């Protein structure tokens, strides 16, 4: 028990005053006793001293009371019976003791009273603090704290609730909670819950985390999370709800879910294989494309090691890389290796491997992205093989071409030597028959012999033409500057000496620039053009031939125009090919190879050829050749 004689936190002047009062009170009582001495004598020596003790103890506390008591005992003892400190009679002793007991009792009572008062003060302060704390909690709580009676009336409504629901505390106290914040469709349920609690003292929703919809003062709704706890204030049950606006959390949840779904969709529908492998290399997750790629079903793959589907030759290398990653030495790697498809087929893949790590940086599992590069690999291999064999194949082809060329030369040689010999014999002997034995042959015989001569001549022309053509196609042509003017003049002069040419009117229109050509081939071309011009003359008019040139940007076009039978449009393309004859040899003589020689020859010299013609209106043939570079 605490001593109150010198209570802590009491100042010195205060102490002086209080204890001084005790001394003064006792002194006054003593003086009064002295004054009453004649009346009282030695009776009731302590009676007067009860007052200072009682007053001091009651007014200024137990400590001064005790001092007053001690002083009073001393003063009383002194007063009776004979103003001395000596006490001899038992009666006086008893009187002393009784007074001391009474004074003690008074002091003790005073002390009790002070103690009780202090206790009450402390309790009141504690209550005040608790209230302050409670209201601070209510005020500063982030959650809405709402207390209602078991009748659903609001008794507590904190600032968070004000803010979130939009109602001021003063406006809602005593109102029905249901009508304030519970959407109409849930109100009945709420009322039933309260009624049941009132009836049974049970509420299945109490103490649980609930997610419901709330109503704001503006009528809008929002998701809330709440927990309700019952409490008793006096005899009345109350309910306190902690509510929280979870709009943001809900939105985040939705976003998270959507994001997870998107990720899932990406995973499932990606056009690459995606897998997760555990620390032992076993498949934990695989996507659809990976299954398709490897031919295994998901259930066949899960739990299986990647090594099981890796080509035996690549296993060691792949395992080393994997182990390094799972030891944390290789965060990311990428390499190419072979898988074995379920069918046993080899599959080339490119794998990008990364590891997901724990907070200490140690791998937890691996993520792999796998591309099927079989087609690319095959193409690369094919290309390599192709490159390797290309040279050889070029050699082979070159050799084959040379062989063909040789054969063609041998063929040409045979044709020119051996095929022409019998022709000469046919023509020669038939001619001799006509010359020397004509009269014996008779008219028919002469005609037949002449037919042999003609046929042999035609066949020789044909052979000569084919030889020229094949030489044009197969041999290199030496190109040089050729004066077109003199070449044309020579060719026209030759033509005029032939029977057909003599009948024609041939006009040469200079100038003719020099061209770059092979002199012999160009001569042949010009001769062919001119002889065609007079050969295919119309039956009903004399042949008129005109020759001129037309300069182009880097070339010269030589034109030969006639007024002959012309060529229908549909035949104009084909007349330039070998063995294309439009007319029987009886109508127009020739081998049909002349135009083919013109075209091939012009092409081989870097030029071209063509015709503009209309049936029975004549033709205009042209050949184009590169211009000769200027002399000097």
């Amino acid at each position, binding site marked *: 028990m605490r001593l109150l004689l010198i209570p802590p936190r009491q100042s010195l002047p205060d102490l002086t005053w209080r204890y001084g009062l005790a001394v003064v009170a006792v002194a006054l009582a003593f003086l009064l006793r002295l004054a009453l001495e004649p009346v009282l004598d030695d009776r009731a020596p302590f009676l007067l001293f009860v007052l200072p003790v009682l007053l001091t103890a009651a007014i200024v506390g137990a400590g001064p009371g005790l001092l007053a008591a001690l002083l009073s005992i001393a003063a009383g003892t002194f007063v009776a019976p004979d103003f001395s400190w000596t006490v001899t009679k038992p009666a006086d002793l008893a009187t002393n003791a009784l007074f001391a007991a009474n004074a003690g009792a008074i002091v003790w009572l005073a002390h009790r009273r002070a103690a009780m008062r202090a206790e009450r003060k402390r309790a009141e302060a504690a209550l005040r603090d608790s209230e302050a704390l409670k209201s601070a909690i209510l005020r500063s709580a982030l959650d809405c704290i709402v207390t209602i009676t078991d009748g659903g009336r609001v008794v507590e409504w904190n600032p968070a609730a004000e803010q979130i629901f939009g109602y001021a505390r003063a406006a809602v106290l005593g109102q029905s909670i249901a009508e304030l914040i519970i959407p109409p469709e849930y109100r009945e349920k709420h009322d039933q819950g309260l009624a049941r609690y009132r009836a049974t003292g049970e509420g299945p929703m109490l103490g649980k985390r609930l997610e419901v919809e709330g109503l704001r003062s503006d009528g809008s709704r929002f998701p809330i999370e709440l927990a309700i706890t019952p409490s008793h204030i006096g005899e009345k049950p109350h309910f306190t709800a902690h509510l929280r606006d979870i709009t943001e959390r809900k939105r985040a949840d939705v976003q998270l879910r959507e994001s997870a779904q998107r990720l899932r969709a990406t995973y499932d529908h990606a056009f690459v294989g995606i897998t997760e492998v555990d620390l032992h290399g076993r498949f934990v997750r695989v996507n659809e494309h990976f299954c398709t790629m490897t031919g295994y079903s998901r259930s066949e793959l899960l739990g299986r090691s990647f090594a099981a589907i890796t080509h035996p030759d690549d296993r060691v290398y792949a395992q080393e890389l994997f182990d390094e990653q799972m030891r944390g030495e290789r965060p990311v790697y990428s390499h190419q290796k072979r898988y074995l498809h379920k069918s046993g087929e080899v599959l080339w893949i490119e794998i990008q491997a990364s590891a997901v790590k724990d907070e200490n940086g140690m791998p937890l599992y691996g993520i792999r992205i796998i591309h099927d590069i079989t087609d690319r690999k095959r193409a690369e291999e094919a290309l390599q093989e192709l490159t390797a064999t290309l040279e050889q194949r070029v050699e082979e082809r070159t050799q084959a071409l040379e062989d063909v060329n040789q054969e063609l030369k041998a063929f040409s*040689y045979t044709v*020119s030597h*051996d095929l022409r010999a019998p022709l*000469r014999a046919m023509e*020669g002997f038939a001619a001799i028959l006509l010359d020397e034995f004509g009269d014996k042959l008779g008219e028919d015989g002469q005609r037949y012999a002449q037919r042999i001569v003609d046929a042999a001549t035609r066949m020789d022309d044909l052979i000569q033409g084919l030889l020229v053509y094949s030489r044009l196609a197969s041999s290199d042509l030496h190109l040089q500057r050729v004066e077109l003017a003199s070449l044309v003049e020579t060719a026209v002069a030759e033509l005029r000496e032939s029977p057909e040419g003599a009948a024609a009117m041939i006009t040469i229109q200079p100038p003719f620039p020099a061209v770059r050509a092979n002199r012999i081939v160009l001569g042949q071309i010009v001769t062919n053009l001119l002889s065609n011009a007079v050969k295919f003359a119309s039956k009903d008019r004399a042949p008129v031939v005109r020759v001129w040139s037309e300069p182009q940007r880097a070339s010269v076009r030589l034109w030969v125009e006639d007024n002959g039978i012309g060529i229908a449009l549909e035949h104009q393309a084909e007349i330039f090919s070998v063995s294309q004859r439009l007319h029987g040899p009886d109508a127009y003589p020739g081998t049909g190879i002349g135009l083919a020689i013109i075209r091939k020859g012009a092409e081989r010299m870097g030029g071209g050829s063509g015709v503009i013609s209309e049936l029975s209106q004549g033709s205009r043939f042209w050949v184009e050749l590169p211009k000769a570079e200027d002399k000097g």
Partner: protein
Amino acid sequence: MKSRVSMLLVEDNPDDVDLIKHAFRKVQVPHQLEVVNDGEQAIAYLAGQTALDNEGQRSLPAMVLLDLKLPRQSGFAVLQWIRANPGLRHVPVVVLTSSGQDEDVRRAYELCANSYLVKPIRCDALIDMVRTLSRYWADLNLLPT
């Protein structure tokens, strides 16, 4: 000096031989036409001609008409042999053949043929050719003795 009285035809094709003989007849070439049918015969004949006769003369041909495509020894071999033989070096050799192929023409001139002619198809053209040949090589052309 004895005039060169003969011409040598080296030709394996009997048809061509007859046709050329016919042309010679037609043109009335004064020279005797000797005919051999392959390269070996040609060389043997010419080798014989290089020997001196009783009068100490060589009866070299006025001209050799040489086909190229011949049995045993080709016309080129014969030509090469002639040009390598000091006694025959200057004898005019006219190649008379079916082929007008550039390669053959070039090679013939490289081996020092005096002329290169392609046998014409027409008989009258052959007669013209023989006439020209005999006129030029036998009558006009001068040779060292």
